[in-house]
């Protein structure tokens, strides 16, 4: 399959150039200038941007076990719709991805039916129970790219020390969901003004910060590569800054919702504003935006967490935590951070592409000759109404429902194949 993309605004080597891209044998054969070749397919991308396919370090595909919420097919379809060409599947499935058979199941399903590359993240502890180390080495041989107990957090510091030692032994990055259970308690939203007003049990920033502080120290002690998932407070960022200043291999990600919303979104009791970590104070949010801008926060991850309507349509304190994010990440951030001048488009692209690729040493993330053909074509000028009808994820739990969002994804190409095509394109 030879594909020629004409007249595009191509993001390559950190800047935009005008020209064509030629894809041949799953790779970018030629980039820039006017390319004249015989192609099986020619796409006129006039007025649109060609960006490296986005890479999500943090997705919940719910497969196996909860495929009524999402599965590998719909999850990757949603990813492609959002301009993603690769997602990392978190291990909190049923059964938990804590063994080689589960790893292979996901890889096979994704290979046969996926619309994006799926990288498997194995568990840190068996069944995410925080009691015994999972078979990391075997899973690594099977292709996992990192370990994480995401959704859970290893509470026992001594065990976590062992886990980090063991992970570093096999060069597996450790992704943490930092949450001290005793401090988080039965909390529903951030400990702040809104929790006081609504009388909801709350989760203090401390619940996140004490684990980040602990795990940075454990990482320093063990030499493990530490990646902090969905960072959300100003204080957490200070801890990361200290670690980075020391030269420790510590990285972190932030979600679009923590960059755009604050605790006040909870005032309506809309369960689509209920997530973990909770939406924090405006001060925390601004700190995250600033840290993203400066590169203290390395990348953006969606924490795509699908839940069915009947689960979310409940009393606030009973409803599950989490929102979907793959289809809205780029448009929401483009609208709220780039169009408002808070961060540059270049920085946004970098945080969605090359930065996550670097953290887990994944292919993709750049457009250059000889590199894999993972890319997305987006028309930044076009707005679309993000409604239930055009969500490709099985779940519709998002606070951005029925909003007009800019940045229409026209095509997504993964490994040289078109994985998503907008109905109005061609």
């Amino acid at each position, binding site marked *: 399959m030879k594909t020629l993309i004409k007249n595009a605004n191509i993001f390559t080597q950190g800047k935009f150039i005008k020209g064509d891209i030629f894809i041949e044998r799953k790779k970018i054969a030629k980039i820039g200038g006017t390319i004249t070749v015989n192609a099986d397919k020619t796409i006129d991308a006039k007025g649109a941007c060609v960006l490296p396919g986005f890479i999500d370090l943090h997705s919940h595909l719910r497969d196996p076990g909860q495929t009524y919420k999402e599965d590998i097919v719909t999850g990757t379809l949603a990813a492609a719709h959002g301009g993603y060409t690769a997602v990392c599947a978190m291990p909190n499935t049923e059964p938990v991805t804590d063994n080689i058979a589960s790893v292979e199941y996901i890889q096979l399903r994704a290979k046969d039916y996926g619309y994006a590359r799926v990288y498997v993240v194995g568990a840190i502890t068996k069944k995410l129970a925080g009691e015994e180390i999972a078979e990391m080495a075997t899973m690594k041989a099977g292709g996992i790219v990192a370990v994480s107990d995401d959704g859970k957090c290893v509470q026992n510091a001594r065990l976590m020390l062992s886990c980090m030692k063991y992970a570093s032994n096999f060069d597996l990055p450790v992704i943490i969901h930092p949450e001290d259970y005793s401090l988080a308690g039965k909390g529903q939203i951030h*400990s*702040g*003004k809104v*929790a*006081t*007003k*609504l*009388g*909801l049990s709350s989760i203090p920033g401390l619940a996140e910060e004490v684990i980040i502080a602990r795990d940075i120290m454990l990482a320093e002690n063990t030499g493990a590569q530490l990646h902090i998932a969905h960072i959300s407070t100003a204080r957490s960022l200070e801890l990361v800054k200290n670690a980075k200043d020391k030269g420790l291999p510590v990285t972190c990600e932030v979600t679009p919702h923590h960059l755009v919303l604050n605790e006040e979104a909870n005032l309506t*009791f809309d369960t689509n504003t209920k997530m973990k970590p909770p939406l924090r104070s405006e001060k925390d949010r601004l700190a995250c935006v600033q840290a993203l801008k400066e590169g203290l926060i390395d990348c953006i991850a969606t924490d795509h967490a699908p839940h069915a309507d*009947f689960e979310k*349509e*409940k*009393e*606030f*304190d*009973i409803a599950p935590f989490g929102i979907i994010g793959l289809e809205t990440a780029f448009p929401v951030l483009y609208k709220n951070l780039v169009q408002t001048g808070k961060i540059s488009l270049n920085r946004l692209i970098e945080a969605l592409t090359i930065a996550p690729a670097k953290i887990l040493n994944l292919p993709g993330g750049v457009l250059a000759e000889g590199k894999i053909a993972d890319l997305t074509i987006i028309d930044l000028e076009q707005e679309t109404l993000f409604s239930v009808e055009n969500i490709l994820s099985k779940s519709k739990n998002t606070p951005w429902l029925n909003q007009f969002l800019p940045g229409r994804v026209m095509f997504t190409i993964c490994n040289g194949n078109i994985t998503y095509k907008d109905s109005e394109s061609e």
Partner: protein
Amino acid sequence: MTSKPQFAGRSLFDLDDYSREEIMFILEAAKGMKEINLREYKKIPTLKGKTVCTLFIENSTRTRMSFELAANRLSADVVSFQSSISSLQKGESLQDTVYTLNAMGIDLYCIRHSSPGSPQLVNKYSGKPVINGGDGRHSHPTQALLDIFSIWEKLGDIKGLKITIVGDILNSRVVRSNLIGMGKLGAKVTVCGPKTLMPSNMESVYDCRVEYDLQRALKDADVVMGLRMQLERMTEGLFPSLEEYSKHYVLSKETLKYAKKNALIMHPGPMNRGVEILPEIADSNQSVIVEQVANGVAVRMALMFLILGGKA
């Protein structure tokens, strides 16, 4: 001149959505209802043909009876749905419950639920007006209205009154609604309790003063309200013992010396006599604790009357 407040079809989730004028209007209406309750034949045909449902997902016999009595006295039909949150979690959802009840032709829901925001959900699922009878620790507007009514009846204008509320502020829905209502009417409210039972940012969320010392909190108070102290907070590590709590925060003759002479004594009930309030105070002639209960029926009658658009 402000126009006559419109209540028909409106819900009461909390006092946020009601203006000062509207709150005063409800109090005036409650005054009329209270007179009916003092008659020998305590029933008017106002809401004949209307159906009120008390939807109680959390137990509170007192509050439920107050709502049901209010509906009965206005001649509405009353149906009662009671369940616990655990049984609701196991089986049918709140949504399904409301759909079922709605099919039976409910005109007004009075809900008590441990989840904050649940009255809004019932309103969303039913399309019918809802009176919040207490949602978790969030709000309890009818209790606030009856508290305010009790003060207004005894002391007149609320504006400028010094009101002190003492106890477990963190877990109290009564406090939150009272702060909104009393604030709208111009009272100066002080909340007092141990730091572990005080939510963060109280002064910026509500226009109130926070004190951790009872003497200072009670200084010159016109109204003093005690709150129920629950033993379970002890096991949550929020305070060491009821004895120690009582030693520092009990409303007694001794501590009330700092308040104004004849300060009004209130308590939303049920009381722990000897823990947050001594019997000498609870039963004194300054106390309006028993009257609060009677006023609760009147306030709820007034609300049902206004919301269901009954004709006098």
